[in-house]
């Protein structure tokens, strides 16, 4: 299986689309080929494939010679890019020399010095193939187009949420500020009184004029509530919000919202 290399390169205006058959590389083209390989492992795989070498029984002398030949040319041309390649040179030479050492007779099962290199080459090749497979898969934005028709966007209006703590904090800051206005009076009427003031005003707004006794639900409201209701009416009158009228002593008392006239 010949390793596929995709190259987009021109030399003297000529499109190059294959790797040359032998290892001779025109000096001007070196950079191009350097870019074509993804690193020393890729180059080694290329050499192994190209020369039909058995990866499980790599002839180290031959592979190292070809590799060094290549790297020497790269070095002459583009030193800084060759660092990873030089490291591999050192490794190859080390493996080669270990293989040349006579095996001591008493150690029979010593691991093949090439084992680690072979493992790495095989792992790299598997990844390289996996990368090609991934690249060939349909991708969203390329071959896969996802439906995205238009729709009229209604923003589901969600009103701000308010907690009692929020409200308390706001009131506290109001009071703090109010204390700076020396002339302002913040009276401290009971909240329930103020609530009843609102309620009575609401009722009067609806009915225009109401009899005093109609404002009290004597049967259902307890005494405290009746008192609060009465205080609310007094406060409304004090603040000039309602007008209280009685035609004659002991005749019905009427409440109505104050009018300017």
């Amino acid at each position, binding site marked *: 299986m010949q390793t596929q290399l995709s190259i987009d390169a021109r030399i003297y205006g000529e499109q190059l689309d294959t790797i040359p058959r032998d290892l001779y590389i025109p000096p001007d083209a070196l950079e191009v080929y350097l870019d074509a390989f993804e690193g020393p492992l890729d180059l080694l795989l290329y050499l192994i494939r190209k020369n039909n070498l058995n990866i499980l029984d790599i002839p180290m002398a031959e592979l190292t010679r070809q590799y060094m030949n290549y790297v020497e040319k790269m070095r002459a041309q583009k030193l800084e890019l060759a660092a990873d390649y030089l490291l591999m040179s050192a490794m190859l030479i080390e493996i080669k020399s270990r293989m040349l050492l006579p095996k001591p007779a008493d150690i029979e099962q010593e691991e093949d010095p090439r084992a680690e290199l072979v493992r790495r080459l095989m792992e790299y090749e598997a990844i390289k193939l996996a990368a090609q497979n991934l690249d060939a898969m349909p991708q969203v934005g390329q071959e896969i187009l996802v439906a995205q028709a238009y729709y009229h*966007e*209604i923003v589901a209006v969600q009103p701000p949420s308010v907690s009692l703590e929020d409200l308390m904090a706001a009131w506290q800051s109001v009071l703090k500020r*109010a204390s*700076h206005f020396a002339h302002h009076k913040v009276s*401290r009427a009971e909240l329930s009184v103020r609530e009843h003031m609102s309620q009575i*005003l609401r009722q009067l707004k609806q009915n225009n004029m109401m009899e005093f006794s109609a404002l009290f639900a004597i049967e259902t409201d307890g005494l405290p509530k009746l008192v609060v209701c009465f205080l609310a009416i007094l406060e409304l009158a004090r603040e000039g*919000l309602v007008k209280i009228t009685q035609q004659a002593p002991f005749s019905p008392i009427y409440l109505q919202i104050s009018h300017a006239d």
Partner: protein
Amino acid sequence: MQIEQNNIQHMKSVLEAALLTAGEPLSLDDLLRLFTDRMERATLRMLLDELKTDWQSRTMELVQVASGWRFQAREEYALYLARLNPERPQRYSRAAMETLAIIAYRQPVTRGDIEEIRGVAVNPNIMRQLQERNWVDVVGQRDVPGRPSLYATTRTFLDDLNLRSLAELPPMENFTRAEIQLDL
């Protein structure tokens, strides 16, 4: 004839696939680019009209807008689709919260009262916001020149804050009496 019919169906399918996936309106020129064979604009228009009819009673409608054609979900689905993107709940501004607090604790109050307490003018939008939410309403007018509206909190306000009555609001004395001289 059969082939022609198939061909028309196929071209309509290509148009449909393009319009459903485009994400923006496609102009007639865009759509013509879908076909390598020369196509008359009149033919394209005819195909679009047919496609529009095909979708007549379905979930999407094919419409023409300024920059071209697009599929869009029918109006009746808008409400459902809105549920997919719930807006993050907003927060009331500090001014709105203070206004609300004043109305709750000091009701019934006029805008003038609120302005006097806060020391700044009340933004009419805030009052509208609170009234639209039905948290605040007008319960009467104060009998002074201009007859300003008196605002109070509503039943809905109590319900939304999970209160039975205003008396259940945290009493201000707890935390204010010490620091504020209330001018009684």
